[in-house]
């Protein structure tokens, strides 16, 4: 065996041993992890996909998770559910930026827009459909892995502005009897990043890099700032927002500075990062069934490092530490109920990785501490610690196949938690199994904190009953997939304009099942008042719910010509077993949803995408029809505000063109080209034809 394949296998083994939370070399390991996991049903999008899609903010990347069910109330915060996860049942997805877990959860809501990150810095986003274990931490609702770029030139500057506009303004009709309300622009985002990089001398100036002495040392740093605005001006939600928060409660504003610095060398690397975001928004409290005007802040600071005693050797030691603070404060805007909530999470882990001969193993320990404050309330159990040990074994990576085993044992607030996972990829067949148990504060955060004194709903006059003993949820999941035609490498080669590609198509057929037990599910009835403001008539917190969701996925890519390809993604799922409440809330997730897209590069540096997306009807149990809501629905141009959302389909068309050797990029995208009104939440915005224009400037390389 030659040395090169052995080293390649070792690199892949290390990536698998760490994946997907590999801080040692986030870009390389993240890509390797993405490829490794993609064979198991995950999908990823690169910077080109992000530019072409006409996304406004970082949170909008969820729209590209083809098999995830994405819903939104006001168009700013997107809620996403990977296959097998039903609305209101189970936890949300986990978020990793360059392999670092960032705690974004706020009472069960995970908003990517809280990240102090703009899209021009994103190199790749991978959506992990399955429950996974990352460095001993369970992500039962899948994960979103964001890989960012690092400055490569001595000085680099990136700037981006994107603006979206909905059609349907009255125009001169406003002076006539045909006057209709003005439609606000739905928002913009402006961002800028300045980066510096300085390389040291290589070990020997005339010697090429080798695995033993891969490169010279390098220092890099960048600082960025993001400013965004979104108008909740949709006629379906504006009257409610004004009724809740007053006349000026329609503008969501975000400001987010961030800074990073790092040093890479032959023996390892170290990096520090810090960032914050402040968003003036309406926080949708699911248990209340409506928004609360809040100032929402997020702060994070952390560091990670890797040390290799021998460059290119078999042993790597890694460590990371971070602190995040999530806060909701309704007092500034005098929002009701007076929600004030601050959750600080500090965590760290250390891992030793050994890789040899296509096999790799990592062993580590983690500790996370949590601290919750609520100024207006007395909470019990405000602090707790979760700790544990973990191990991952990976084998057979040299042959392109892999076997991985994950073990994680720990204690959270004195209770045992565990996760055991196994996955296998071989000859186009991938399979994975996972069994896990969470703590109640993780699987049912609202119910947990309601038990411990969070009385915002009591204060709002909502009677609450609790049924069953609150426990941590247990999960048993299984995935099986078969891939024909080619894997991730072939998919990359099939991109329009890319050279080569041995296969003209790639198809993956998959099935999955998720078995939940001891779930806590909110059961509520929301009745809208005359202004369309829903109120929780009563709320029952049901613990000890259980059920099984199962379904299938299809992902296919067909290369039509060197300059054109077609992609199709489909997901079907249903609750096949379980309690009546579990089945009921599962109906809020469309059984089938699908997307088909034609991607073409007819001219150099120009990409065109035409996509059709569709979702079946869904039934939202919590939102019972009422005369008032039906009135609201009747005034919404045919869309309805009752518990049933009809099936919907839309066509998107986008153009993406680069100029001046890719220093300037312009994009134009139309969403819902045929202007068919559709909504994804019973009291959410009504999507209409929207145009998104973006410009991006990149000076200096990466």
């Amino acid at each position: 065996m030659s040395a090169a394949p052995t080293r390649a296998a070792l690199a892949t083994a290390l990536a698998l041993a760490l994946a997907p939370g590999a801080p040692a070399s986030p870009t390389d390991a993240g890509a390797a992890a993405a490829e490794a996991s993609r064979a198991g049903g995950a999908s990823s999008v690169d910077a080109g996909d992000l530019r072409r899609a006409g996304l406004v903010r970082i949170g909008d990347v969820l729209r590209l998770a083809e098999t995830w069910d994405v819903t939104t109330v006001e168009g700013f915060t997107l809620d996403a559910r990977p296959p097998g996860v039903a609305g209101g049942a189970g936890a949300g997805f986990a978020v990793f930026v360059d392999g670092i877990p960032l705690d974004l959860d706020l009472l069960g809501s995970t908003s990517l827009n809280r990240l102090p990150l703009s899209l021009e810095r994103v190199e790749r986003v991978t959506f992990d459909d399955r429950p996974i274990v990352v460095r001993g931490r369970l992500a039962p609702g899948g994960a979103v892995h964001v890989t960012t770029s690092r400055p490569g030139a001595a000085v680099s500057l990136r700037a981006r502005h994107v603006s979206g506009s909905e059609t349907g303004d009255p125009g001169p009709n406003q002076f006539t009897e045909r006057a209709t309300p003005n439609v606000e622009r739905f928002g913009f985002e402006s961002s800028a990043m300045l980066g510096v990089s300085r390389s040291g001398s290589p070990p020997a100036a005339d010697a090429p890099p080798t695995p033993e002495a891969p490169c010279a040392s390098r220092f890099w740093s960048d600082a960025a700032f993001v400013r965004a605005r979104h108008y909740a001006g949709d006629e379906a939600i504006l009257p409610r927002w004004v009724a809740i928060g007053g006349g000026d409660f329609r503008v969501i504003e975000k400001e987010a500075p961030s800074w990073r610095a790092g040093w890479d060398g032959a023996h390892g690397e170290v990096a520090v990062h810090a960032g914050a975001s402040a968003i003036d928004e309406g926080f949708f409290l699911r248990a209340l069934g409506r928004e609360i005007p809040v100032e929402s802040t997020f702060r994070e600071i952390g560091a990670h490092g890797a040390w290799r005693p021998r460059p290119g050797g078999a042993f790597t030691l890694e460590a990371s530490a971070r602190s995040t603070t999530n806060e909701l404060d309704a007092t500034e805007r005098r929002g009701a109920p007076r929600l004030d909530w601050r959750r600080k999470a500090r965590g760290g882990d250390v891992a030793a990785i050994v890789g040899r001969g296509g096999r790799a193993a990592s062993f580590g320990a983690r500790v996370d501490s949590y601290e919750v404050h609520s100024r207006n309330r007395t909470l019990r159990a405000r602090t707790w610690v979760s700790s544990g040990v973990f191990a991952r074994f990976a084998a057979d990576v040299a042959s392109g196949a892999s076997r991985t085993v994950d073990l994680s044992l720990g204690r959270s607030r004195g209770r045992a938690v565990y996760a055991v996972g196994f996955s296998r990829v071989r000859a186009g067949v991938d399979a994975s199994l996972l069994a896990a148990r969470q703590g109640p504060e993780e699987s049912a955060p609202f119910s947990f904190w309601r038990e411990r004194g969070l009385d915002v709903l009591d204060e709002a006059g909502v009677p609450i009953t609790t049924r069953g003993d609150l426990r941590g949820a247990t999960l048993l999941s299984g995935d099986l997939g078969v891939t024909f035609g080619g894997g991730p490498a072939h998919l990359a080669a099939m991109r329009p304009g890319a050279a080569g590609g041995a296969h003209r198509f790639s198809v993956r057929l998959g099935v999955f099942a998720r078995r939940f037990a001891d779930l806590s599910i909110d059961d509520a009835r929301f009745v809208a008042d005359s202004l369309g403001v829903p109120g929780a008539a009563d709320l029952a917190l049901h613990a000890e719910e259980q059920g099984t969701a199962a379904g299938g996925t299809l992902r296919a890519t067909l290369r039509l010509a060197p300059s054109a390809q077609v992609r199709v993604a489909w997901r079907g799922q249903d609750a096949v077993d379980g309690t009546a409440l579990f089945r009921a809330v599962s109906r809020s997730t469309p059984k089938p949803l699908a997307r088909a897209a034609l991607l073409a590069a007819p001219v150099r540096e120009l990409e065109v995408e035409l996509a059709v997306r569709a979702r079946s009807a869904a039934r939202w149990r919590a939102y019972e029809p009422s005369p008032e809501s039906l009135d609201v629905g009747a005034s919404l141009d045919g869309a309805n505000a009752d518990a049933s959302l009809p099936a919907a389909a839309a066509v998107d068309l986008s153009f993406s063109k680069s100029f001046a050797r890719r220093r300037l990029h312009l994009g134009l995208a139309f969403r819902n080209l045929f202007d068919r009104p559709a909504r994804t939440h019973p009291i959410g915005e009504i999507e209409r034809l929207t145009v998104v224009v973006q410009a991006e400037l990149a000076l200096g390389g990466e």
Partner: protein
Amino acid sequence: MKRARSIAAIARETIAFLAVATPAVGAAAVVLASSSPAFAATPEAAARPASFETLTLAVSGLAASSDASIHDDWDPGASGELSAWTPFGRGFLEVAFQPFASEPRTSDLPRVRTLVTSLGWGAGLRLPAELTFRTSARTAVAWMLYDASGERAAQDENELAFGVRAELERRVGSGWAAHAGVRAVRILTRERIDLVFAGAGVSWTFAAPAWMRAVLE
């Protein structure tokens, strides 16, 4: 039984989706795949100028069609258009600026001055007698200014619009051509505004400056 019904529902909805998606994606695939090098290698394609090789500037005089109106309340008058286009792929890329003013038909309404800025892509078809039929589809923004009237202050507003252009063009000299044709624009206000203009003009084609080609390429 419930499960069987559920599976049947999923199958029905999936078939319905594929029935809608397949023709749409397929038709677009044929159009876009025709841009592949295999199609571009035809003799006709070889005679086409390369992308951004030339630049054409055009000026046109336009008049709204006789029955044009904005919902019977405004009367669009004469208009003009300044445009520029350059070869791009199998067709051409264009930008256009078309201002016009719409006079109110009743005194309580303001005059509406509109500037339609367009970005379009189209293609030309060579005909006998040095004629070329040129057509394009446009995406536009209509910038509308409402004059002050009575106690009402001036206001402005903008809205997305789509348009098409169809013209017959004839060479009249080295680099010069005359053209006549129509333009239609739909402004996507809540009550759509549809307008049709007809007119004629001249255009001048010249080699694009090197700096401009460098930037565009």
